[in-house]
């Protein structure tokens, strides 16, 4: 069970003077249950790449398979395969449109022909997952919620589609630190509780480092690095720099300690452990 891209190239404005290959010959397999982070500089092809995961874009050449099904074939099975990928775009709250939170979340499943009773269960579950109280929020208009709450309603709308694969493009952009931590916490819970596959596009290196078990770094339409976040942030800093991607601030700080001669294990992604390591090293020192 996986999403598989084979030799995928996508060319914008093909056969015009502005022709540009946004992604080139991408081979990638995202397996069920993975938590994949995708990072890259603006224009590196991240968004183009993720739009191939559920068939929003059709490759100029190459093939996309979801669970073994070529999604660009005609017919019901291909359509269902595409539907197993839920996509949360940047600023998803701009897509809210219904009169109540309940109706907004119910819109997707209803379109898929889900029965009303099942819809209600899904809406409840989805709201629960994003940490909003059903009784309190279901009847409210989505437009007078705070930014963070609107974002969560929008994510709930995708979760209610019951996708096997959840793709999120910058879900924390514009949220304050608390809102960001909440959203990421909920995505993490969802991943752990249901085993849902998560693909997360983010500029926030620390969060990617902490949550993802696999990291893909895009550069100029190609996959530059693909591996474990700790390994990439610690051992491939020159390549990250080349890709215009920041190393997490904590890794930078740990580098500085090393340069001053402190012997520490710098492959850490949380401050508490890092502080412990430094403390031990100084005491040994």
């Amino acid at each position, binding site marked *: 069970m996986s999403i598989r891209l084979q030799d995928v190239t996508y060319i914008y404005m093909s056969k015009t003077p502005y022709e540009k290959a946004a992604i080139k010959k991408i081979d990638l397999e995202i397996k069920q249950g993975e938590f994949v982070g995708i990072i890259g500089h*603006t224009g590196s092809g991240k968004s183009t790449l993720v739009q191939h995961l559920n068939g929003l874009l059709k490759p100029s050449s190459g093939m996309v398979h979801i669970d073994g099904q070529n999604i660009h074939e005609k017919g019901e099975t291909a359509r269902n395969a595409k539907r197993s990928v839920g996509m949360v775009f940047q600023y998803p709250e701009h897509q809210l449109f219904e009169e109540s939170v309940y109706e907004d979340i119910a819109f997707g499943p209803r379109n898929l022909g889900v029965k009303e009773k099942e819809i209600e269960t899904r809406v409840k579950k989805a709201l629960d997952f994003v940490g909003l109280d059903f009784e309190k929020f279901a009847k409210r208009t989505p437009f007078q919620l705070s930014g963070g709450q609107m974002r969560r309603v929008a994510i709930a709308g995708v979760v209610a589609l019951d996708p096997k694969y959840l793709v999120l493009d910058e879900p924390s952009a*514009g949220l304050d*630190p608390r809102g960001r931590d909440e959203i990421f916490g909920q995505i993490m819970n969802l991943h752990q509780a249901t085993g849902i596959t998560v693909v997360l596009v983010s500029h926030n290196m620390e969060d990617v480092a902490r949550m993802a078990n696999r990291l893909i770094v895009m550069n100029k339409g190609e996959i530059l690095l693909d591996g474990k976040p700790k390994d990439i942030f610690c051992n491939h800093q020159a390549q990250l720099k080349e890709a215009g991607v920041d190393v997490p601030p904590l890794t930078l700080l740990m580098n500085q*300690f090393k340069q001053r001669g402190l012997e520490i294990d710098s492959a850490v992604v949380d401050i508490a452990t890092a*502080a412990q390591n*430094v403390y031990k090293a100084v005491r040994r020192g």
Partner: protein
Amino acid sequence: MGEFITVKDMCHTYLAHEGEEVQALDHINIAIGKGEFVAIIGTNGSGKSTLAKHLNALLIPSSGQCLIDGMDTKDQENLWEIRQSVGMVFQNPDNQIVATLVEEDVAFGPENLGVPPKEIRNRVTEALKDVGMEDYRQHSPHLLSGGQKQRVAIAGVLAMRSNCLVLDEPTAMLDPQGRQEVLSTVLRLHREQNITVVYITHFMEEAVAADRVIVMEQGKVVMEGVPKTVFSQVNRLKELGLDVPVAAEFAYRLRQLTMKIPEDIITDTELVVAVCP
């Protein structure tokens, strides 16, 4: 350093859903000097943006006063002058670009002010140079990156000869490089042209660059001071739901592990020197 912005006992109330009154700003008192760089931080809904919108009279206080260079924003007669002297840059770069060419976009402000064409051309050239976008003069803004678009928006403000820039989360939608471009542009303008800057952000590493940091919570100013004083209060900021710079939190953890680390550390370099002298 004279005061440029004076906010006295200012309140702003608006009606939310079901006729409920919300006090977005609750007796705010702030004074910002000419040429000062002030960062405002706070969670969503703390009143930062509402405050910013008072600074060029997009909103008028429900009670209290907001004075810009001595002019009361309540006074209709001052409106044009206030809007000219305080330029705003918002979060979404796509919502504030109006023209199809970069130079036309920058010229939009001065054109509206009735500046003679020749002078407009000079101002546009100068403003684009100031933000490092002179090579993009004839470009179409929608093909620029987010950071470039924000710099064009800043140039638009400069071309109006505003002496104060109010930026409301200008980097929230940008990638790390775009964020760096915008911040360094603002810092340089502040340094070289003595422009007063009010910079709202969620990124603490940006707020660290300011002369002074104001922390807002539920419509009130709850902390205020130089970055060192504010960011060394790790616990307090965390309670407010805010981040602290990595170095400050790291220092805090080391202190908890009984290491002797000075209280006012907020940058990596300071921390590294304190740990390995």
